[in-house]
């Protein structure tokens, strides 16, 4: 029994934190994300984190990756969440994970090296306009014609859609309505991907339209079935919740720090229980969904059957708690918290973004109820 991190993992965390503190403090986050022509992230920093090995963290060494696991990934994502680091890292990691886990050896050699060195950016396109999570929400039509597959339909809420060079698209095919995953490359005829304006500028969401996009058969991931799509939702929920842990901690530290300094009625407001108690509750919640995230990551690394349950507990808890923490952060700050220039609002926006991503609290709690035998 050891619910702790290895020395290597602690080192990884401190390196990631140091890099982000030095290269992408919140001031830089704002510069990058508020630039109307910038695409929402920095190509320089992207190349930098590729060189540091973050993009291939969980990919096999054979293709240039570090061969690590989800627990290691969670360590990195807690830190990128803490800094609200704007980059396609989560989308990219999911695409690479899909290709590695559900693709053939030939497909690995074709795509993974480009994803590891950062020369290609990946994303996954699973949900559609109604945003129904899981395989049930996939309706995009795939049609086989000879040796080709034709995809027609629309994907919504696609992370980093405009930046993506490789999009892993979920589709349904034929009379059997069998589910599948295919890799669509930027520039394919009939493909149009664009980002949509969003409230959280540090996260880009877009729409991908496919109008009779023709793919060779080797663009289809052989193991990409309904279970694969469900798994990608689970891993996606895990990844964004890991970022949520870091973001929630940062919001809590920011607010507690302010409460220690701000004096009203002749004393620091942090000495009032009306201020103390919501902060204590925030601490309880962050600690708790952090524990749930760690356990879910461990389940993912060890192929445990209860991964969906572990993920849903974590995502449901976080989706409920994080927006509350964000709102309290604003309220406890008072007027300054409502301003654009103060950082509290950035965390509230991330909280709202996270709540909806990869299934909200209602969806995940319902799955916990069902898996628990109700």
């Amino acid at each position, binding site marked *: 029994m050891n619910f702790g991190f*290895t020395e290597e993992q602690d080192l990884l965390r401190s390196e990631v934190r140091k890099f982000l503190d030095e290269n992408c403090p919140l001031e830089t986050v704002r510069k990058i994300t508020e630039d109307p022509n910038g695409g929402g992230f920095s190509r320089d920093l992207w190349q930098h984190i590729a060189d540091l090995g973050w993009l291939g963290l969980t990919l096999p060494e054979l293709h240039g990756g570090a061969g690590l696991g989800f627990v290691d990934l969670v360590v990195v994502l807690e830190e990128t969440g803490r800094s609200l680091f704007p980059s396609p890292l989560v989308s990219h990691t999911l695409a690479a994970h899909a290709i590695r886990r559900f693709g053939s050896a030939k497909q690995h050699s074709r795509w993974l090296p480009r994803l590891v060195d950062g020369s290609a950016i990946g994303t996954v396109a699973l949900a559609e306009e109604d945003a129904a999570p899981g395989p049930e929400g996939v309706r995009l039509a795939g049609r086989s014609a000879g040796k080709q597959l034709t995809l027609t339909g629309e994907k919504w809420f696609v992370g980093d859609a405009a930046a993506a060079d490789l999009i892993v698209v979920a589709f349904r095919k034929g009379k059997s309505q069998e589910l599948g995953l295919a890799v669509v490359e930027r520039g394919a005829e009939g493909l149009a991907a664009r980002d949509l304006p969003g409230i959280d500028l540090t996260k880009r969401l877009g729409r991908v339209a496919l109008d009779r996009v023709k793919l060779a058969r080797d663009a289809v991931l052989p193991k990409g079935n309904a279970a694969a799509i469900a798994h990608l939702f689970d891993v996606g929920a895990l990844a964004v919740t890991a970022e949520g842990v870091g973001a929630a901690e940062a919001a809590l530290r920011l607010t507690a720090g302010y409460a220690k300094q701000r004096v009203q009625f002749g004393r620091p407001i942090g000495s009032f229980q009306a201020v103390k108690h919501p902060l204590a509750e925030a601490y309880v919640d962050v600690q708790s969904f952090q524990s749930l995230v760690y356990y879910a990551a461990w389940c993912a690394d060890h192929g445990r059957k209860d991964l969906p349950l572990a993920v849903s*507990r974590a995502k449901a808890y976080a989706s409920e708690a994080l927006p509350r923490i964000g709102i309290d952060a604003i309220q406890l700050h008072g007027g300054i918290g409502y301003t654009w220039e103060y950082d509290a609002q950035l965390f509230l926006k991330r909280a709202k973004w996270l709540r909806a991503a990869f299934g909200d609290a209602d969806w995940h709690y319902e799955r916990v109820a069902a898996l*628990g035998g109700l």
Partner: protein
Amino acid sequence: MDFDFTPEDEAFRAEVRDFIKKHLPKKYTPEELARWHTEARARRYVGFAWPKEVGGGGGTISQQVILKEEMARAHAPPLGVCFMGLAWVGPSIIEYGTEEQKQKFIPDILDGKYQWCTGYSEPGSGSDLAALSTRAVRDGDDYVVNGQKIWTSIAMWSKWIILLVRTDASSESKHEGITCVLVPMDTPGITVRPIRNMAGGAMFAEVFFDNVRVPVENRLGEEGQGWKVTVSALAHERSSIAEVAGLQRSLEELRVLARRSKKNGRPAAQDPGVRRRIARADARIEAMRLNGLRFLTRQLKGEPVGPETSVNKLHRAGLEVELGELALEIEGAAGVLDKDAAPERGKWQRMALSWPEVVIGGGTPNIQRNIIAERILGLPKDP
């Protein structure tokens, strides 16, 4: 990160399961319970965490967790019958007691010869425990105690009380000048008046002290060190593993209740509100389990575990209230019936009316929030 126990620990788990299979009482008659206690004592499961020299089990931290977990899972009766003696009086005596005190009290606590009660809270000092004002004045070889304690659980059935008294009212800090003494409950001048709680039972009492003479040799620790003795005693309960197993069981029973019941004419298990609240409790109980394992890991590495344990105390408080409330809401109109007229013979009514024992006892939720805010987040103290 590894959530599995070592093969040695798993072997110990198998041993405990085997013990439970063999000795778990079928019915909780006094004879069966006495036999259970004798067998548990023979295996040194009673006082399992205590050093072997004093008659304890000398169990490792992970074995203690396994033992608690397996006992809770099996609905087993408690290990040992002297509840407060085993929970904190014994550990305090082991840490601060003289040789004579250890020899006099520890074997009896392990054997469950009689009960101990705890005289901490007073009418004027509940959450602010250190403000206590029961006085003890030195007179020759005795202290003379005057004052009143309240919320003293099982005072009417106890032979001894562990008592906090103020021996020095002039000290600057209210934490100084407090002394811990051990007092026989049949000492002249002690009066016990039971208090009936909202569930209808009388488990706690007021205890009055009127010129009660306590020999100085019955002092535990040094004069003026009573606060230290108390704090270390209360710190003995840590990772909350046993509470988690108990809550998991309650939640499982609640699921059964939901599957059997109708709420407003429809199956309760299909009600979205019921489903969400059960799932919410499920996620929180699992978070408690995992938080407990994080604390346990720290303890295994020899690191101190301090105010973080308030996290699980808050979860537990919330869950004890929520599960009882939810059960009564599922039962609907029948939820306000009681005893044999109520569903499941009033089991959930008892839970819905007895949560204050664990929610208020040992520090209210707001006190736990203060602990987290001040000692973890570093916010200034409330003046």
